[in-house]
């Protein structure tokens, strides 16, 4: 499996991008040449120089430092969201498929309701009542996305449940827990890993879209979507202020998408193209 990943150009490209964004996030405090939040009205819109490698923005803040710190927010939201969502999705999806009957139908109805509900409204309401910041964004993302994750797991699990080896383990007298955790879950893991990897890309885009609309973070936070939104008034005079943060979002999301799709090819060769 490790070898297959190393032999796959696409997986390597994805991993490289993920590594770059992770390094940006971890080393931002060390690598940033300036304080990302230091406002200096005298040095607005400076061209790139030795002190400001990518120039300064509309408030005279160092663009490069802000971009580096932005990685912290992107990954800082995407990774915890992923763990919470992955856990909830896997638990609810397999439980519903395994228990079946009335509970399963109830689960599907609740999923349908959450999926039909405009996600923006749910997020606005939660961010409005929990306040701004990382925790409420994670909570808002989880509460809108869990139904999609749980339903995907459920559809895989209910396919898996009908297979002969599950019937065999029932006959052999396995307990329900053992069937769920020992048999169904391990067989779902590959598909779920793929779904999660492409899911991170989705969160990164979703969070940047939210902060683009001015939700979730306090004004001035060096988050990519927020940076882009604050710079949009100066778009025609200084397009790079909009182009750089967008490029960061694109590369971060592309990293996880590339890796996730390559993982799918490796795990299910019959669907692979090459």
């Amino acid at each position: 499996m490790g070898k297959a990943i190393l032999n796959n150009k696409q997986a390597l490209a994805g991993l490289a991008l993920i590594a770059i964004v992770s390094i940006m996030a971890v080393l931002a405090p060390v690598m940033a040449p300036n304080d990302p939040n230091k406002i200096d009205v005298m040095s607005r819109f400076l061209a790139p120089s030795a002190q400001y490698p990518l120039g300064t923005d509309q408030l005279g803040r160092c663009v490069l430092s802000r971009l580096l710190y932005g990685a912290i927010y992107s990954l800082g939201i995407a990774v915890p969201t992923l763990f919470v969502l992955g856990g909830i999705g896997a638990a609810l999806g397999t439980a519903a498929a395994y228990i079946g009957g009335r509970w399963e139908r109830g689960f599907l109805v609740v999923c349908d309701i959450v999926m039909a509900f405009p996600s923006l409204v749910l997020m606005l309401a939660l961010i409005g009542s929990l306040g701004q910041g990382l925790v409420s964004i994670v909570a808002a993302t989880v509460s809108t996305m869990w139904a999609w994750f749980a339903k995907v797991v459920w559809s895989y699990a209910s396919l898996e449940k009908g297979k002969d080896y599950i019937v065999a383990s029932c006959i052999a007298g396995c307990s329900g827990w053992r069937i769920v955790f020992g048999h169904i879950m391990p067989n779902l893991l590959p598909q779920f890993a793929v779904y999660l990897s492409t899911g991170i890309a989705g969160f990164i885009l979703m969070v940047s879209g939210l902060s683009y609309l001015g939700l979730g973070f306090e004004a001035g936070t060096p988050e990519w979507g927020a940076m882009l939104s604050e710079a949009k008034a100066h778009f025609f005079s200084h397009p790079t202020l909009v182009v750089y943060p967008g490029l960061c979002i694109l590369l971060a999301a592309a990293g996880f998408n590339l890796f996730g799709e390559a993982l799918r090819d490796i795990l299910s060769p019959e669907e692979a193209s090459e």
Partner: protein
Amino acid sequence: MVSMIRRRLTGLAVVLFGVTLLSFLLASISPVDPAEAYALRVTQQPTPEQIAAIRVELGLHLPLHQQYFRWVGNLLQGDLGISYLTKKPVLSDIAEKLPVTLQLVGLALVWVALVTVPIGILTALKPGTLFDQAVRWATILGISLPSFWLGFLLLLLFTLILPVFQVVNAGTLGSLILPSLTLAVPAASAFIRLFRATLLSNLNKDYVVYARARGIRQSRIVWVHVVKNSLPPLITLFCQYVGLLVTGSAVVESLFSLPGIGMHLVNASMARDLPTVNGCVLVIALIFVLTRTAAELINARLNPKLTDKEERLYG
């Protein structure tokens, strides 16, 4: 078929009931008092008595379940209430904003359909070629694009570098070209990927070998058998996207200053305009469930055997 439609309609009603209930519950958890927000728009420094009077006037002093039943009662008479923000009936506001969004989403889906089918077929017929590889990488970039950023780039391209047509010209079809492209690029990328994968897995099935053994022309096999069998997942995703794009268009609407329902809903949520929020949520959820039901019915017509499994699951 008829029993399937009947069951879907019941499911639909249940979902709409849940969605509106959820909308009311969410309205009650927010710390911002809608009556106070309303009073602040009318007078600068409202007294507590004024706020209390407004609360009674808007019916917000009632317990939540009574508010909900009152709302449902009015809804059944075709009345969604009066917006706190615009002071006009919610329904007429929606009737004014929704067509803009629907045109935007409709045009975006036209682009998507035009691009997906030919590119999907071309890449699936010759997998591994340079064209296929290029499409593969391009579509991965496409699904990773932040839509608002793409919108900025398109604006930059068509205003400064290639000023071919009037970009900002509200009310005409021309004004929808860039916003719809902004919505269409990520969607088309997702569709091409799905369609190619489904086509490829169908091309490897036994029925294709059998058809070839019978001496049927390749073009006929592809168009009549493989494409038809590959459509159901595409149609499901297509209809799902109609619902998702209607909410997702808020970002694009704000970028291109289009007066659509997405921004209307965001503004109403921020201003605690509860009747508008509840009305918009209902309409968007309705679009979502209707398009999904439409997808299921189309798929059932296209391939009756596929529905057998569904029937058992929902049975």
